[in-house]
C-alpha cells in the first residue's frame, strides 16, 4: 500500500482493559466518535484531523495538508515571519493556542493578507469566547471546591452530579489529585448503587492513579 509507506501507521484501540496503556489517548487527541483519524507529529501533537466521511481522497488531502504544515513550522522556526503568521493562524483555528498568547505573538508578525485576515479575526473571536467559557467554568469549579471543603454539598442527584463533575473535570485539568479524589468519592457516594456507573468509576480511578503518580513519581 503506497499510503502506508508515507506514514507511520499507528492503531489505537480503546479497550477499557485495566492493564492496557494509553486508554485516554482517544480523548487526549480530540476524539469525537469512532473511528477517528488524525495525523500526529513525532511529539504526538495533532497536526491535521481527517474530515468525515473517511475516504482515500480524504487521507491523501489531509496528509498533504499535514506535511505542508510541518514544512511551514520549520520555516517559521527558521525565522520566516510570514510562515510564523500562518502557523499562528492555523494553531488558533485548531484551538492549539489561547487568544491572549496569540495576540502577544501577533505584535511581532506581519499584517495578515486579505485571505488571512477573516480567518485570523474569526479564529481569534473563537478563542476569546472559549477563554471566557473556560474562565467561567474555572470560577464555578473553584466555588464548588470551596463548598466541598466547607462540607456544604448537594443532596439532589442531578445537582450533585453537576457539582462533582464540574470539580472532577477542573481538577483533572489542573492535575489536582486531592480535589479529583474528593469529587470522585462524592460521585461514588451518590451513584455507586448503579452498576452501569462502574466503568466510569474504573476509568476515573485510573486517572486518579495517574494524577497521584505524576505528582509523586517513584
Amino acid at each position, binding site marked *: 500500500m503506497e499510503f502506508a509507506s508515507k506514514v507511520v501507521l*499507528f492503531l489505537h484501540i*480503546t479497550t477499557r482493559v485495566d492493564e492496557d496503556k494509553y486508554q485516554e489517548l482517544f480523548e487526549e487527541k480530540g476524539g469525537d466518535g469512532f473511528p477517528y483519524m488524525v495525523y*500526529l507529529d513525532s511529539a504526538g501533537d495533532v497536526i491535521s484531523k481527517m474530515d468525515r466521511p473517511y475516504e482515500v481522497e480524504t487521507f491523501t488531502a489531509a496528509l498533504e495538508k499535514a506535511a505542508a504544515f510541518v514544512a511551514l513550522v520549520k520555516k517559521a522556526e527558521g525565522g520566516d515571519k510570514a510562515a510564523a503568521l500562518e502557523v499562528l493562524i492555523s494553531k488558533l483555528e485548531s484551538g492549539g493556542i489561547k487568544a491572549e498568547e496569540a495576540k502577544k505573538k501577533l505584535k511581532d508578525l506581519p499584517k495578515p493578507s486579505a485571505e488571512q485576515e477573516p480567518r485570523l479575526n474569526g479564529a481569534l473571536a473563537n478563542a476569546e469566547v472559549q477563554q471566557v467559557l473556560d474562565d*467561567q467554568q474555572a470560577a464555578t469549579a473553584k466555588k464548588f471546591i470551596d463548598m466541598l471543603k466547607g462540607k456544604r454539598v448537594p443532596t439532589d442527584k442531578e445537582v450533585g452530579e453537576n457539582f*462533582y*463533575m464540574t470539580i472532577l473535570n477542573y481538577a483533572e485539568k489542573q492535575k489536582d489529585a486531592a480535589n479529583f479524589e474528593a469529587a470522585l468519592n462524592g460521585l461514588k457516594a451518590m451513584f455507586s448503587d448503579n452498576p452501569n456507573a462502574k466503568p466510569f468509576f474504573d476509568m476515573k480511578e485510573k486517572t486518579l492513579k495517574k494524577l497521584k503518580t505524576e505528582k509523586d513519581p517513584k
Partner: protein
Amino acid sequence: METNVTLKCVPVAVLGLFLAASAALAGPPSQEQLKKQRDDKFAEAWVKKYPWVTDYSKAKEEAKKSGKLIFAYFSRSYSP
C-alpha cells in the same frame, strides 16, 4: 442563560452516558470479556493486513527516526 446551559450539560454528558446505559445493558462487562473483545479486534483482517504500530511510544519513536508523520487510527473493541 447560555453559560448555565453549557456548565450544566457538560458534566452530565460524561457520567450520564454511563448511567443512561442502564436500559440497554444488563451490567458492565468483565475484564475477561473486554480482553476477548480486544483480542478479537486485533485478529480482524484489516488489522493484520497492514504494519500497524500499536504502542504509542514506539509510533512516536519511529516517526522521529523516519521523519514521517503518524497516521493515527482510533477504534474501540467494546462496542461495534
